[in-house]
């Protein structure tokens, strides 16, 4: 059977039909007859001392089962987190960010839970809060974390959670023709998955089961087990397909609390956050980046010195890893002769910052790309050309002792240059910009897959990857179908239930096609080896006489189907053939600053054309072209759709998105009404994606990861285009109409 058509074709998304009919059950759609409803209680402001919580009125509301506060829990209160166990199950002593609950009300109906939550009286005293990079670095500011939580940490008496220095060569005293030095800012933005966060927990047997649309079921299982001090095996995570994730659904939030409630009450409990609450639980890490870039007269980068100060939240979450990983590769896809990156993860009394599409790279890229464009202007070199001159060739180690450049990046740059008609004249108030982005992919991580070949040669694939919109089911089905020669209707992918599927590190870092894809590939290969042995035994021939190819077994006695081999080999008792695949990539390297080399680089070239209205400062992105080297697009439509989506999300943080805090640390623009994201009217008239495919990636059939690249360079490209259109250079995102208008006014005012 020829199944080649499976790979490289835009096969229909597996699960698309259930999504257009409303049949797909997302987590909040699951129904538990005896479930209790949870509503959280908050105090205003970022930081408050909790003095007294009066639950008496709340407990009088009919149907209320309990009102839990931190004092009810065993002390010292259990803390949890993926990087550090620093976050208490409920706020204890003081709240540390706007949106940290002080109590959880549980009742028989949503109405009763809401009514009772409003009756919980909290006496709280507002305290000074750390809300910005400057606050965090001010020695007079309060400490966000209790130093006793950070024993033996020399930084424990500061708000610096971690600091790093990365680099090579020597940036001191380099002889430069041109030095460009500026400071850039990237705002707090929120993921705004259309599905708000939802958590359901129920006691089950000797353990507890949690239903939540998490991207990383096994991280959650480990963290909840640690918080409960239970063996991992007693915690079961079920992760229905998320309604969007983008990193926001990666890391534990209220799951430990829900587990505790379910176990105390002996009933299922459910907590569906509002969008406003969701905004308060996860955000992108904001940043202040100081960049000093040295060039020779031809535009070659002699040195990059970057100070990357990332403002993480009140708890480390995975924000601490965002900072180190993004800073390590912050110099971008360039041959930088000397580099020094000084990075800090700064604690603050704000929403915990976490993974968010691009994992810190869009922040760094905003600075580095703006610097390059500015240097090009000063040196009289075309912005495309200055990038071309600094791009490493494939195989070149642009970061010493690390994964070399692994794609034809120059081809992607040339492709974007061509597609955007870079060298054609522009009308008034129009501008073009180009920017590159480079993201370190997954480093040390592991994916396991189980593939089961049933007696009728249909196939079950068990995988802990989360299908959150990227289309992982489709790609895994394409791989299994190709390797075992079965048609789509005979492959079923089961995901997300830790009692069924084997371990996977995470659905993040654009890693699933490569890591989980390879695991499925290897599992299928094991099935073919077992078929070979079974067939040889059944026919009483040497194994070497048997050749197993996708869908068929060639034997000295003719060609057999997989089903025929199984019938012959397994007989009336029947059975199945199980293959297990494991991909660990290059593995853990303790000497590497990130614990391992990136398995591949996610590279993207972004080019835009904008029109700016100088009267209003409004920016219309009229054209947006993306060009990436993806190795092999297993499903091109899915790759393109992710690129386009990432790009439009990038238009959001470039032009309109920012969480705004008041002086007490309260987010003032909570919810869809006050926090604007791109709509269907904001998209470029021309939006398209070009895929370079040389089948040279580490994944199945030469694939590399994709899906985050589209967001990496958008801000740098739009900033450059706005500058060309109306002559203003703005270094703080977002480029709102007000900021642009003010910049135009102040530039005009300086004219004679």
């Amino acid at each position, binding site marked *: 059977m020829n199944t080649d058509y499976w790979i490289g074709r835009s096969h229909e998304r597996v699960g698309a039909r259930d999504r*257009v009919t409303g049949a797909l059950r997302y987590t909040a759609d699951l129904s538990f007859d005896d479930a209790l409803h949870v509503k959280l209680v908050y105090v205003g402001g970022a930081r408050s001392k909790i003095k007294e919580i009066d639950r008496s009125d709340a407990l009088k509301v009919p149907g209320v089962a309990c009102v839990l506060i931190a004092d009810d829990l065993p002390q010292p209160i259990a803390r949890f987190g993926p990087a550090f166990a620093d976050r208490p199950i409920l706020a204890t002593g003081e709240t540390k960010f706007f949106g940290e609950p002080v109590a959880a009300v549980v009742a028989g109906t949503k109405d009763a839970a809401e009514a009772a939550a409003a009756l919980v009286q909290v006496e709280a005293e507002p305290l000074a809060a750390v809300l910005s990079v400057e606050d965090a670095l001010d020695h007079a500011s309060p400490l966000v974390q209790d130093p006793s939580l950070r024993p033996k940490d020399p930084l424990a008496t500061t708000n610096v959670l971690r600091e790093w220095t990365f680099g090579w060569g020597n940036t001191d005293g380099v002889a430069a023709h041109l030095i460009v030095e500026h400071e850039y800012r990237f705002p707090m933005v929120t993921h705004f998955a*259309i599905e708000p966060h939802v958590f359901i927990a129920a006691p089950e047997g000797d353990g507890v089961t949690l239903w939540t649309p998490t991207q990383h079921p096994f991280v959650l299982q480990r963290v909840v087990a640690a918080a409960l001090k239970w063996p991992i095996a007693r915690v079961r995570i079920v992760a229905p397909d998320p309604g969007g994730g983008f990193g926001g659904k990666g890391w534990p939030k209220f799951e430990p609390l829900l587990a505790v409630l379910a176990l105390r009450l002996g009933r299922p409990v459910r907590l569906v956050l509002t969008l406003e609450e969701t905004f308060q639980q996860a955000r992108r890490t904001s940043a202040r980046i100081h960049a000093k870039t040295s060039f020779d007269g031809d535009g070659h980068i002699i040195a990059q010195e970057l100070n990357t100060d990332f403002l993480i939240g009140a708890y480390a979450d995975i924000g601490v890893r965002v900072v180190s990983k993004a800073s390590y590769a912050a110099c971008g896809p360039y041959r930088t002769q000397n580099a020094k990156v000084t990075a800090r993860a700064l604690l603050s009394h704000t929403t915990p910052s976490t993974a968010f599409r691009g994992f810190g790279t869009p922040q760094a890229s905003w600075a580095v790309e703006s610097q390059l464009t500015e240097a090009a202007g000063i040196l009289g070199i075309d912005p495309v050309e200055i990038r071309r001159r600094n791009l490493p060739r494939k195989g070149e180690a642009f970061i010493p002792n690390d994964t070399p450049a692994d794609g034809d990046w120059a081809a992607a740059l040339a492709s974007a240059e061509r597609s955007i008609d870079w060298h054609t004249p522009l009308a008034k108030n129009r501008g073009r910009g180009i920017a590159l982005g480079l993201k370190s992919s997954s480093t040390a991580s592991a994916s396991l897959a189980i593939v089961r070949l049933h007696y009728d040669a249909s196939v079950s694939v068990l995988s802990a990857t989360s299908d959150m919109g990227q289309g992982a089911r489709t790609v895994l089905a394409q791989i299994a179908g190709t390797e075992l020669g079965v048609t789509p209707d005979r492959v079923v992918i089961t995901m997300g239930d830790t009692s069924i599927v084997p371990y996977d590190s995470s659905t993040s870092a654009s890693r699933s096609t490569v890591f989980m894809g390879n695991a499925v590939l290897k599992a299928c290969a094991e099935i073919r080896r077992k078929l070979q042995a079974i067939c040889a035994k059944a026919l009483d021939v040497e194994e070497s006489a048997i050749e197993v190819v996708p869908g068929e077994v060639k034997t000295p006695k003719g060609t057999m189907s997989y089903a025929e081999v199984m019938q012959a080999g397994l007989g009336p008792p029947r059975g199945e053939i199980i293959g297990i695949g494991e991909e660990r990539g290059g593995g853990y390297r303790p000497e590497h600053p990130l614990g391992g080399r990136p398995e591949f680089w996610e590279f993207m070239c972004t080019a835009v054309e904008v029109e700016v209205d100088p009267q209003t400062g409004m920016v219309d992105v009229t054209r947006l072209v993306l060009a990436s080297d993806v190795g092999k697009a297993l499903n091109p439509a899915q790759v393109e759709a992710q690129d386009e989506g990432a790009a439009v999300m990038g238009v959001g943080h470039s032009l309109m998105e920012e969480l705004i805090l008041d002086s007490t640390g309260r987010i003032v623009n909570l919810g869809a009404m006050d926090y604007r994201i791109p709509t269907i009217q904001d998209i470029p008239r021309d939006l398209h994606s070009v895929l370079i495919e040389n089948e040279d990636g580490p994944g199945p059939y030469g694939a590399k990861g994709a899906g985050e690249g589209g967001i990496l360079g958008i801000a740098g490209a739009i900033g450059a285009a706005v500058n060309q259109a109306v002559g203003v250079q703005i270094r703080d995102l977002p480029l709102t109409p007000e900021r642009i208008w003010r910049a135009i006014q102040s530039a005009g005012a300086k004219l004679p």
Partner: protein
Amino acid sequence: MSAGDVTVHMQVNGRSFALEIPPHHTLLDVLRDTVRLTGTKECCAEGECGACTVLVNGQAVCSCLVLAVEMDGREITTIEGLASGGQLDPLQEAFVATGAVQCGFCIPGMIMAARQLLALNPYPSRAEIQEALVGNLCRCGGYSRILDAVARAAASQR
């Protein structure tokens, strides 16, 4: 029935319901929690994201913004009511065919808003599709495939 509940008669996807509901429950609450049709999604609950869009007597409304008691005597169509006899609506087919569906959470609302557009305007321009769907937010995709899907469904209906 609790004290204060109100009896409301409505048709949902052609079926008649007599429901006893608290007067402050929205149509969205009732569809999801009482009628148990969960295809209609809740996101912003303030009429800005469009995820909860349904048709009320053929008109697209955000079901989070209307009280269920106002629906007495109305005909409601939800995403579950579009396909008939196993046959998908042309919009549903088109969303699948163009790859417009990613995580899918916005899609029911998106399709219901587009359903009203095509009922009123079988020949929508690109700008008219954008106008009709400006209140339906998607965060996974770049919207262009959604535009293509609606245009394709319109063409297939002619």
